[in-house]
């Protein structure tokens, strides 16, 4: 799960237990030390970077980049290993998320989309991304048994896995407004956008009109994504809209 930026609460807001108190409309917030929560957010960001590297290497394989000092099988090997590393960091990301009691996220929330009480939509995207990453890895490991066509069909979902992971990271909003986290995420997006543009320019898909449509779609997605980012996650109060559970709910399930 690639996701970057873990699904996260406002640091310093809803802790392991949040007690609605004080004359009906006030609250006393109780929190606990949460090193696991910091690890969750950190491994989420690193998993996104690794997933981006893996995706970028996959695109470089597709455009058949190779040189005398850099044969193609090195790119293929690195692509495979980066994907496995991304999966490992995603596993730590998921494990620390469900182990930590800072937010009420269970094991099933990490794999079944949109059932989490905590930021259900954005956490659901993370669940989809992790499911897709697992499917991609398993089918790649079983590629010889699956056959090339089936493997390729599943491998196409990589183009869905990566943007969903990016949206998960940005949409949960825990660290979106942190400048260097935003910079890392934008660099990831820029790298994949450039390489996708390269692949389109390289002559894939074969039909020119499809390539033009793909290029237009790429630009449109980038513009729409930028507009959404500015008007959404970068705005103050985004966490309110992104599905922070009620204090009462956190109290009931969070600790």
């Amino acid at each position, binding site marked *: 799960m690639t996701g970057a930026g873990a699904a996260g609460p*406002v640091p310093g807001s809803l802790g392991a237990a*949040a007690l609605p108190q004080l004359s009906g*409309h006030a*609250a*006393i917030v*109780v929190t606990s030390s949460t090193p696991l929560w*910091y690890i969750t957010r950190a491994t989420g960001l690193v998993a996104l970077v*690794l997933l981006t590297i893996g995706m970028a290497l996959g695109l470089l394989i597709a455009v058949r980049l190779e040189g005398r000092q850099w044969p193609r099988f090195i790119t293929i090997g*690195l692509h495979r290993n980066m994907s496995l590393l991304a999966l490992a960091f995603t596993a730590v990301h998921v494990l620390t998320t469900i182990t930590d009691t800072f937010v009420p996220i269970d094991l099933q929330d990490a794999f079944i989309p949109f059932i989490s009480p905590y930021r259900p939509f954005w956490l659901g995207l993370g669940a989809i991304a992790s499911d897709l990453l697992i499917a991609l890895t398993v089918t790649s490991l079983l590629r010889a048994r699956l056959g090339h066509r089936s493997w390729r069909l599943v491998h196409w979902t990589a183009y869905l896995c990566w943007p969903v992971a990016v949206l998960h990271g940005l949409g949960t909003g825990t*660290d979106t407004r942190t400048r260097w986290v935003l910079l890392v995420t934008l660099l990831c997006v820029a790298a994949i956008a450039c390489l996708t543009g390269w692949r389109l320019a390289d002559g894939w898909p074969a039909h020119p009109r499809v390539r033009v449509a793909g290029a237009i779609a790429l630009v449109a997605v980038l513009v729409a994504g930028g507009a959404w980012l500015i008007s959404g996650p970068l705005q103050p109060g985004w966490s309110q809209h992104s599905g922070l559970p009620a204090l009462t709910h956190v109290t009931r399930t969070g600790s």
Partner: protein
Amino acid sequence: MRRDEVRFAVAARDDGLRRVRRLTLRIGAVGVVGSAAIAVAFSHLSGSAAASGPARGANPAGSGTQQGSTQPGGTQPGGTGQGGTQQGGGSLQAPAQNVVPAQGPAQGVSGGS
């Protein structure tokens, strides 16, 4: 194919595989160290927020601090001390800003979206 050509090809393959392994190990190590550093940076950010006091409306962690009950400081004991104004873990924090209504808009979210 001559024997020396085969030997050269095998050596090139082995060299390539070694490079893949070495690069993977390095990137993995960078990932682990980077994760630890980022985690520490996040705790520092929370620590900075704690040191700056509850009057600030924006959390430097950039995490949407518009929750009414949030008090950027003092609620992350995992953060490193910066000014010594942090509260101990598990301490009760009286909200310095406006508080969340018990039946506020966030209540509707818990059912899913």
